[in-house]
Every structure is written in structure tokens, then in C-alpha cells.
């Protein structure tokens, strides 16, 4: 059953230097209780995509086209007050930098109680505090610490608190924007594990946004690969891992460190992502593509279906 359905989504930023189309005609869908991973380099538009879903773009950004349907209802048609209902309650959001995502002058307890009473104003405070205790225990923070302030916790613990806040109202969807990028590798694994646990506990769907293909292959049911604002390949993780069709996906897989292989030379994809103010006329990956040919320089391939649920945007595959 499809929970989230994004279609033809286009988001732009107006800057002094021109208009940047950060998300270009993107479509994806998320099944209930499944995990979708969105992978891409910085500049690929993945974070903008996340912010577009909850409609929290900065002032110079706006969604110019498309629809975002949560349970059939198009979020783009809602008023700001209605969106406030959705945020936190139906969609939980986790941000990248735990060090700056919590109110520096608020106790941890207050963060939770404020959240609960905001959405359910009739809740008595003691009940909210009880729920806080529960949540903190669930995410692995000792409830006795709830009167402390964010700066007294480490990055990993703060991210746990953020996860706790995201699931507090039992959302249907959790969007995690690079939740582990600011953390060290060992903590990363723990946090991702926690995310998985919460997903199961609350029967929620998760959209995991990251640049780390390894994480996504390991934990996600489905994957969408983004490049320069477009989805270039999407499908189940088995499909992506076993049969990567897009040259970019293949390159990403190549450069993902793999313990099982013996060669340890770090690899990188040659070249750099395109300047979004100055996009090439044809396929955006063409300058770095090992198998590009003439047509790639002048036309942009369409996204086509190559197998059940496996889409790719490449002329080599008939796009």
C-alpha cells in the first residue's frame, strides 16, 4: 500500500545569480512500513527533496510544480495551519546536524512536553512527562537526564533525542536527512539500528536521505539514486545492487568500500557535479560518463521502466 506518492516535483531557488532548479521533475513512492533510501552527492537535490515534502523550504525556495500525496491527500494543496498538523504528527523529520537541531535553552523534557501539548492540547502535563520517559527509554537515553540541556549530551545522544521527538506522536512516515553524516562510524551504526527499531515499533515508513550508498544498500527496501536534481535510477535494493543500470549507479557501487574485496585503493568518480546555474543541454551525467555517446550531449533521456519497479534514465538502456 502506497503511503507517499511524489509526482513531477520541481523545486527552485531564486538567487542573485539566477534560478537554481534543485529538484527537477522527480517522482517516487514509498510503501507503508517500508524504507526508501535516496542517494546522491551534495548538490543532487536530495535534501531539498526532503524539505519539499514537509514544505519547509527557505524563503528563496519554492515548489513550482508537482504533487506530494500522503495517504491520497496532496500536501501541496494544504494551508499552512493544516501543514502544521501534518508535521510532527503524520511525518516525523530528523535533521543532519544534531548539535544545532535542539533548542539550546530548553531542557530535554521541555522539548517533548512542548511537542505533545502542541499537537494534543488536552493532554495533562504529567501524562506528557510519562510519555517522555517512555520515549527516552526507547531511544536509549536515561530518563533521569530529562532535566538536562542539549549541550550536555554528545552528538550521538542528541540524535537519539531527535529520533525520539520524531516518533513521539506515532507518525506514519519518518524522513531522515543525513541522520548519521555528522557522527562517527560506530555511532552511525547504532543510530541506524535505532531508526530500524523505531520503524518496527511504530509501523512507520522511512525515507532515508544520504550520500552513503553502503548504508542504503544494507538497510533499505527500495532505493532512488539522484543526480543534479533528477532521479537517474530507482528500484528495490536487490535490483540496484544486483543489476545497476545507470553508469552513475555503477560508479557509486564501484567506489563504495567493500570489506569483502581485497583491493583497498580508494576510488572516486572523476570529474565534479554540474553547476546548477549552468546545466548542460543534454544528459547531466554525460561529462563524467564512461559510456556516453553523441546523443547524450544534446538530449536528456527520459525515465523508463526496465523491470518490475526498476526505472532508469539512460539512453544506453533505451531512455
Amino acid at each position, binding site marked *: 500500500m502506497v503511503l507517499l506518492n511524489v509526482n513531477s516535483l520541481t523545486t527552485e531557488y531564486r538567487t542573485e545569480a539566477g534560478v537554481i532548479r534543485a529538484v527537477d521533475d522527480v517522482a517516487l513512492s514509498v510503501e507503508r512500513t517500508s524504507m526508501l533510501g535516496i542517494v546522491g552527492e551534495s548538490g543532487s537535490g536530495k535534501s531539498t527533496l526532503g524539505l519539499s515534502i*514537509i514544505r*519547509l523550504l*527557505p*524563503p528563496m525556495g519554492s515548489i513550482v510544480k508537482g504533487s506530494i500525496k500522503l495517504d491520497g491527500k496532496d500536501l501541496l494543496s494544504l494551508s*499552512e495551519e493544516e*501543514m*502544521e*498538523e*501534518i*508535521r*510532527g*504528527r503524520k511525518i*516525523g*523529520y530528523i*535533521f543532519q*546536524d544534531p548539535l*544545532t*537541531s*535542539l*533548542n*539550546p*535553552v*530548553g531542557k530535554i523534557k521541555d522539548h517533548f512536553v*512542548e*511537542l505533545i501539548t*502542541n*499537537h494534543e492540547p488536552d493532554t495533562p502535563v504529567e501524562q506528557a512527562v510519562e510519555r517522555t520517559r517512555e520515549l527516552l527509554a526507547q531511544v536509549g537515553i536515561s530518563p533521569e537526564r530529562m532535566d*538536562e*540541556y542539549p*549541550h*550536555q549530551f554528545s552528538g550521538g545522544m542528541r540524535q537519539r533525542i*531527535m529520533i525520539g*521527538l*520524531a516518533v513521539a506522536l506515532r507518525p506514519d512516515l519518518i524522513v531522515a536527512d543525513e541522520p548519521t553524516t555528522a557522527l562517527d562510524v560506530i555511532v552511525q551504526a547504532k543510530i541506524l539500528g535505532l531508526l530500524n527499531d523505531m520503524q518496527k515499533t511504530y509501523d512507520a515508513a522511512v525515507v532515508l536521505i544520504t550520500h552513503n550508498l553502503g548504508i542504503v544498500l544494507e538497510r533499505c527496501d527500495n532505493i532512488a539514486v539522484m543526480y543534479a536534481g533528477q532521479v537517474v535510477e530507482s528500484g528495490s535494493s536487490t535490483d540496484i545492487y544486483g543489476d545497476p543500470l545507470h553508469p552513475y549507479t555503477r560508479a557509486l557501487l564501484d567506489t563504495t568500500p567493500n570489506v569483502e574485496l581485497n583491493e583497498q585503493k580508494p576510488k572516486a568518480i572523476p570529474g565534479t557535479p554540474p553547476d546548477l546555474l549552468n546545466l548542460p543541454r543534454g544528459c547531466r551525467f554525460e561529462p563524467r560518463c564512461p559510456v556516453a555517446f553523441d546523443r547524450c550531449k544534446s538530449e536528456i533521456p527520459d525515465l523508463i521502466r526496465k523491470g518490475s519497479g526498476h526505472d532508469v534514465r539512460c539512453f544506453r538502456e533505451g531512455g
Partner: protein
Amino acid sequence: MGSGSYIATRILMTIPTIVLLLTFIFFFVRVLPGDPVLLHFEKQARPEVIESLRHQLGFDRPILDQYLDYMLGVIRGDLGKSMEDFSPVSEQVLSAFPATLELSIFSMIIAVIVGVLLGVVASRSYNSSADHFLRFFGVAVYATPIFFIGMLLQLLFGIGLHLFPTGGRMYPGMEPCGLSFGGTTIRTGLYTIDSILEGNPVKFILALEYLFLPSVTLGLYLSGIFLRLTRSNMLDTLFAEFTIAAKARGLKAKTVMYSYALRNALLPIFTMMGLEFAALLGGAVLTETTFSWPGLGRYLVQRIAFRDYTAIQGAVVYFALVVSLTSLVVDVAYSYLDPRIRV
């Protein structure tokens, strides 16, 4: 480190600063070409007169002795004797200070309210014409000499519209006497408070009337700084991660505005209030002169006209002490507002 030790450290740190300032002032007055006593006399006075004054004020003693006397004197509360009539400078300073204090408090209140309000408005309409206008206002107000603002207000409200008095602190004879019971009197020297203590609403209204133009003048002048700072801080906090994260949790817009953006933006403003107190005192000097307000600033200016160097020294010392103590109080209070410092 708990609150206690932070406060203790902070107090300890103030002492060297005060000592340094006092030493600075001491040598400063004596670094003059010639000597303070000589310069005091405009025309050539008879040598015996000069010597006598020099001796009476202790300027003929070795410099180290003078310094020790001076420092010990400050601790005892003795700021020397006026060159004009040998009356204790500390008495004069203490009787003039409450007027400056009252003016400063009201001006600061006006500056903060006007500045913060306009700053919040400006930040919420970022880059609109309202924003530009407000920023220009903040800049223009600071570029205008305080006394010019004062004079314009006097012209408009005092002489033109006859709404407010243009000089002085109180209608002659109506000075509040505070609260008397038994044999003691409680008088703060602040006319607004004293008139309340006395239970006399007429004096209270009068005090406010006289206070109005000077404090609006000084307050407007400083509001520019608070406007700029509030706007800048709000722009930071309105788009800070924790604010966006709060919105992402569906918190109502008003909650986000006050508990997240404003609350965090106002923290540095509090410190700024302490820093600006120094600028306030400087501005008070000019304002008091413009409005003939009988405070410490006007006292200083009068003593300068009389070339009363010991009184000048005493007044400057008092200013230094007030500034140091205020900054200490502000820092300590701030540590209660920002848990990051305390815990």
C-alpha cells in the same frame, strides 16, 4: 563548574580591571604639561596661593604616597576634595548620580523596547522596503549627534507644542521627599520611585514629564544599536537549524517565534545592554547638558569649565566603578539566562 564558582571567578576578574582603570585615571590627570594645580588658575596667581592649594590638596607629596592615598581613599569612599571649595567630591558625586541613574534606566528601557520591537519587525519582513527603511532609521539615528536629537525634540515638543518642559528635572519645590517614618527617611534619589513612596501622584506625573524628553532623546539614539542587533540575531535564529527543526515538528508558528527564534536572539542583546551602558553614560553627559539635567554628566562638564581637576578625577573614577560593576552584574545575570554558561 556550577553557578557559584562562575560568579566567584567573575568577581575576581573585575578587581584587576578596576585597579588598572583607577591607576590609569590617576596618572592621566598628572600627565598634564605642568601640573593640575597650576592649570587650575587661569591667570597668573600669586605663587603663595598656588603653593598653598598644592599643599592642601597633597600635590606636593611624593607620587607614590599620593597614589596610595588615592587608592585607599577610593576603597573608603573618599574621592578627594574639590579645588574650588574643598568640599568632598564624593558627596557631590553621590548627590548628582541618582539623576543620571534615573535617566539611564528610562533611556535604556525606551532603547530596548523600541529597538527590539523594530528589529523583530525588520527581520520578519526581510529585504522588504519596510526592512530597508527600518535599517536606515537605525543607522540615521546613530549618525545624529545626541544633542541635535535633543534640540529637535525640545523645539518640537517643548517650544512648538508646549507639551513638555525643556529643561531641569523637576518643578522647583516639588522634589519628592520619599517615605518618612519613625526617625528615618527612605529616599532613593530617583524621583519617580520617591514620589511613589511618598504617595504623591502629582509629583510622580511631574517627574515623568520632565523625564520624558531627555530619556526619549537618549533612548532613541541607542535604539538604533538594539534594532540592528535584534534584526541580525533574529535573522540568524529565524533560519537556524533548531528553529526549522521546531517547525518540522509542527509546533505552532507563534511558539516557534517566541520560544525558539526570539528567546535565543535576545540572549546576546542582554549582554549588549551591559556593554551599551557605557555608551549610555557617555550619551548621558551630552543629554544632561542639553536638558540642564542635574546629573553626574552635567557635573563633570561644569567641573571641566571650572578646571577643577580633582573633581574631574573623582567623577571619572566614579564612572569607572559604575561601569565595572554594571558589567559584572550583567554577566552574572546572563549566566542565569543561558544554561550553557552555567552548567
